[in-house]
């Protein structure tokens, strides 16, 4: 039980990195990128190609992949997303679903359908573990991944709160027109945010390739996980995303104790429950809060109809 909790928390770091890019795009650019999961898979595939095809060391492969993914994000924002954003709510959805289909099947065509993993290239890291008091074993790889996740999210947080670029990002996210009036180039900010978001997706994909296997069609499931973490934690804050990721990781690892198939279902259920709670508390607030709603329900049913 305790071991499952520790594992769940560590898994949460990976989900938080996966979700952070999605949250950033949504919060700053107001863009729902349905190809986010596929971008993560692409990052994993590129890193795998550097290691397997070009024979590079894993660390060098990662150091090469992340800037490459960032550049890709910048390019996609410039060439595709900017144009899609002008089309209201539906056009970005069609664009990114199309992009996802193109990426999935393109990767399938290039790399084939066999599952791939970086696990064989990171030495004994994939199974080594630390023992902590209480007889609990912590896998070293999940441990390092969690630390990396915290460091990376912390770095992004500092970037957003302490630098000129971060101020521009926050200003654009709050009110892009007012920011533009103050001389902030919204397009540059959006491209920068997209670069960070896609690089984060790439990092999450590399994490996935290290801890498990990647297939070209894994993207949609990763997208669901990212969305779940974002919604559970609340949109627009990195700390919330981290909490959401950990909550999702916990739900999955505790669900897995019941049965392996139950793992994902538990995550979905937590997500739906959080969403339902928000909807209900929103509805209750519209009637003057929970207490007023319950009082009205118990004592004066007519009060409910009176207010709207």
């Amino acid at each position, binding site marked *: 039980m305790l071991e499952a909790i520790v594992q769940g928390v560590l898994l949460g770091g990976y989900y938080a990195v996966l979700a952070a890019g999605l949250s950033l795009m*949504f919060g700053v650019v107001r863009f*729902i990128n*349905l190809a986010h999961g596929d971008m993560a898979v692409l990052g994993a595939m590129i890193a795998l190609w550097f290691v397997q095809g070009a024979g590079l060391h894993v660390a060098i492969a990662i150091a090469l992949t992340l800037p490459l993914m960032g550049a890709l994000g910048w390019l996609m924002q410039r060439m*595709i997303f900017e*144009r*899609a954003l002008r*089309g209201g*709510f*539906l*056009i970005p*959805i*069609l*664009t990114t*679903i*199309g*992009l*996802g*289909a*193109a*990426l*999935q*099947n*393109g990767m*399938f*065509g290039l790399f084939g359908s066999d599952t791939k993993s970086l696990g064989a290239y990171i030495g004994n890291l994939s199974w080594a573990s630390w023992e902590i008091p209480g007889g609990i074993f912590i896998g070293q790889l999940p441990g390092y991944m969690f630390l990396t996740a915290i460091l990376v999210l912390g770095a992004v947080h500092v970037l957003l709160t302490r630098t000129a670029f971060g101020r521009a990002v926050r200003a654009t996210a709050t009110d892009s027109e007012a920011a533009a009036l103050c001389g902030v180039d919204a397009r540059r900010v959006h491209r920068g945010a997209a670069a960070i978001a896609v690089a984060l997706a790439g990092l999450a994909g590399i994490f996935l390739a290290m801890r498990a296997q990647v297939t070209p069609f894994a993207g*949609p499931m990763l997208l*669901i996980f990212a*969305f*779940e973490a974002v*919604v559970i934690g609340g949109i627009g804050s990195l700390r919330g995303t981290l909490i959401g990721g950990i909550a999702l990781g916990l739900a999955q690892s505790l669900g897995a104790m019941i049965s392996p*198939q*139950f793992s*994902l*279902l538990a995550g*979905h*259920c937590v*997500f*739906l429950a959080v*969403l*339902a709670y928000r*909807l209900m508390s929103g*509805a209750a607030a519209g009637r003057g809060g929970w207490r007023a709603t319950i009082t009205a329900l118990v004592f004066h049913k007519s009060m409910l109809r009176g207010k709207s």
Partner: protein
Amino acid sequence: MTKAQIVAHILPMPAQDRRILIAALALLAVLAVLPLMASALVVDKLTYLFILIMFAAMWNLLAGYAGLVSVGQQAFIGLGGYAMVRMVEAGLPPFPAIFLGALAAGVVAWIMSWFVLRMKAGEFAIATWVIAEAIRSMVSFDPLIQGETGTSITALNAYAPEMRRLTIYLLSLVTMTLMIWGAWALLHGRTGAQAQAIRDDEEAAESVGITTFAVKQRIYVLASIGCAVAGTLWLASAITFQPRTSFGVQWSVFMLFMVLVGGIGTFIGPILGALLFFALQEIFGDFGAWYMAGVGIVAILFALYLPNGIVGLWLNKGRAEPLSMRKLLSQDR
């Protein structure tokens, strides 16, 4: 102006639309007798085309006319299929089970609607998808389905292949015709006008006294039953029920593609989109993954450069929308 005066100003159907309708009726008559002379392969392909048209029409009803962008309609394709499998297992003949299974999925859609229809657009899209995944997990727990393995509706093998093919073809043709006619009647009626008002401005619609939730719920449940029927008809021709296929998000991707490429919020657009999708599949389908990658790129190009779809080509030239669901009023007062 009183209601009667307004009604008097509504123009009759334009001549162009009447011609389209007559052509469509003639085409349906040809399709009804086609199996007499066409090969089994053609019949199978046409059945699939009818099913695609049903999906497109139903998703358009949902997203194009009620503004409900769902990425989770596969929930009802899968559920309808699952209900059909269970009903046949319980001894019901397979052909009635096609429709009863879809109705069962409609009941679930009605229950779900209380929850999902209260969400904002982005949440709705994702939550419907997650619910579809959650239902898939739960269906996989059923020992009859055997996890990912799935099961076959063996009762369908009791019919001669020729007779089965013909029955499913005719059922699909009739269902498609009824569905399109039903959508037509719905959209021309009160619900259609209310739904379009909600899609364009929900607050304004509410302020003129439209019960927005009830209208959205009606359309959501009807469109879900429609998707479920198309799904069970597809299952009847495919025979094997596999959770991963039936609950796959690719169904919603297909629907989105057909509707947006054809022209969302127009009556004829999704049908054209389904025809284009079908044609692409027939011509390039042999390329496998590269074909699907190409479909993705076509979707991006349409989204960026022709957001109103094929019908947009007409509209850009300043011509009137064919088979518009808007009521046209005469100029003279």
